[in-house]
């Protein structure tokens, strides 16, 4: 995709499709947890769908993704199939990680989901390494590290961005600023108004941009530019995508620490409602088309749940496997 190509209704629909898939997958997973059908520790991406979708549409399966515990939106946006994803949530041996890694450590190399970390900040140094390999091989791949606003205060963020800028790596640091880090508000942990500002600390090689991540066109455009920049060998980009976390930190978190007014104001700007209307207004699709999209997603999800439920659990001796490989 060329840098100059601009956002069209067709692009909007592409973003919508991914965002909607994330949205349905998340809603249904929470439904399964509520019903007691599965028991993962779950970090809902509700409210951040468009950020991940706007990222995903610019990447192909060869590109690399390093995401975090709150990562199912990124994984789905990257194209990961739902069957092995759900089977992992269901703790089955047919899961992407044989039930050994779990929801917080989803890995799926065929779609470029290389690492899902549960440690704040740790996706970034690893994404650098993937990008370094691409730079050496000249394979034109882009690596994306996603992380939250809170992760921008940990040492790994600084070391990773510094090295990426120094080596001009084809990597994108996508900060999903959802205003909270567990129970702590942004302003109670981060003394700078915008995380994108921090790009300045790494010199001209590091681009820094802040966008409304819940706006399809803004998010799509920022990623378009960052990907083009990376593929062209012009260096890394720090994208601060402003968004919000509707469901608290983990499943079950009532988020009493979020002021009622703030939550209501954010809820009123639900990106899924907005983008749906935008798609209809743009003429890219009609109600009936969107229903068809939902039907297709739900069908894949139904099949995935069926696959997961009917799959066997791992055998006990799995704890002795994959500790070391055969030398």
């Amino acid at each position, binding site marked *: 995709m060329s840098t100059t190509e601009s956002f069209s209704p067709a692009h909007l629909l592409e973003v919508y499709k991914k965002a909607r898939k994330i949205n349905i997958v998340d809603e249904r997973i929470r439904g399964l947890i509520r019903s007691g059908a599965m028991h993962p*520790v779950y970090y809902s991406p509700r409210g951040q769908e468009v950020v991940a979708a706007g990222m995903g549409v610019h990447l192909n399966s060869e590109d690399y993704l390093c995401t975090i515990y709150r990562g199912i939106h990124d994984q789905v946006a990257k194209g990961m199939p739902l069957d092995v994803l759900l089977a992992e949530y269901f*703790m089955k041996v047919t899961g992407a*990680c044989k039930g050994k890694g779990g929801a917080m450590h989803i890995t799926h190399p065929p779609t470029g989901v290389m690492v899902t970390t549960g440690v704040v900040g740790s996706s970034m140094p690893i994404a650098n390494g993937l990008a370094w390999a691409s730079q050496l091989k000249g394979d034109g791949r882009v690596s994306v590290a996603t992380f939250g606003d809170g992760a921008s205060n940990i040492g790994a963020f600084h070391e990773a961005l510094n090295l990426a800028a120094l080596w001009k790596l084809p990597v994108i640091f996508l900060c999903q600023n959802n205003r909270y880090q567990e129970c702590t508000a942004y302003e109670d*942990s981060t003394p700078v108004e915008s995380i994108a500002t921090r790009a300045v600390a790494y010199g001209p090689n590091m681009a820094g941009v802040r966008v409304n991540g819940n706006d399809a066109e803004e998010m799509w455009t920022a990623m378009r530019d960052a990907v083009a920049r990376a593929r062209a060998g012009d260096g890394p980009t720090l994208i601060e995508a402003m968004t919000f976390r509707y469901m608290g930190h983990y499943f079950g978190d009532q988020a009493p620490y979020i002021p009622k007014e703030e939550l209501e104001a954010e809820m009123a700007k639900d990106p899924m409602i907005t983008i749906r209307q935008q798609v209809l207004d743009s003429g890219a699709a009609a109600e009936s088309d969107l229903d068809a999209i939902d039907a297709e997603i739900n069908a894949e999800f139904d099949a995935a749940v069926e696959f997961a439920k009917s799959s066997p659990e791992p055998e006990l001796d799995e*704890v002795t496997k994959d500790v070391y490989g055969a030398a």
Partner: protein
Amino acid sequence: MSDQITFTQAYNRALDEAMAADPNVILLGEDIGEKEGGGVFKVTGGLGPKHGMERVRTTPISEQAIVGAAIGASLAGMKPVAEIMLMNFITVAMDQIVNHAAKLRFMSGGQTNVPITIRTRTGAGMSAAGQHSDMLEAWFCHTAGIKVVIPSTPAEAVGLLRACIDDPDPCLFIEDALTRADKGPAPDVANYSIPLGKANVEKEGTDVSFISYGRPLKDMRKMVDKLEADGISVEIVDLRTVSPLDTDTIVASVNKTGRAVVAHEAVRSFGVGAEVVARLQEHCFGNLKAPIKRVASADCAVPFARKLEHGAFLYQASDIEKAIRETLEGK
């Protein structure tokens, strides 16, 4: 000891009493402030309003900065208690803990000391998988200058945490996440404290010494009567302070019983159990009637699937019983 309290309440009580007793006791960590709800595990709730909001500080997600701030404040006479939310995240702060907190007293020739307490939490069994469940106490036991403390009852939790806070050296206090809501009798005295560096023979026995700390003691307490009924008299030794290890107490116990089973939740290889076994065979060689047995978890990352985590990774209570019975058969 009358009314029952949970481990979480016990930690809160120790902090509350320590803050009341000494204005220099201050708390820092992620989400621990009142506005944030007193920590994800609610241990610090209410302490800010009661003792001063300034004394309970929520931090950014910056473990190096957290431990470093605790060290620095302690050098200036404060008694900081830092919370590292989960033990796997302590990996980010190893330099501050090992190269600085544990060594400054020695490297300064005793001119300075680092009276900090690092509270952290961990343990498998909650499907939290590979990066949220590790028991890493052995690393710190291998580091001179820091004390490693692990309670196994709410009363111990109160007394040992208070002792850590009052101690003149850095203490790593490890809380079990899985059993944090378990209840036990509360100490009926205020400012209850338990001396560090002393293991506790909580039940005398004649046939075999069960030496452990933390979670496995809870399993043993449940099975000890059954074993007695089968004519097996177990002496239960609760290390309480894992390092420095109370060699005298464990050696005296095993010289008496001639048999020992050592158990911990951490993975088996190169764990705390190995040091206990090594010291016992050094000091009790002639009195040993059977090989000392170790019960521990499997040498792998903590798996996600419940079946694997509970059925294959974690040590089993039945492993403890089996080890006790086998050692009596001289196996």
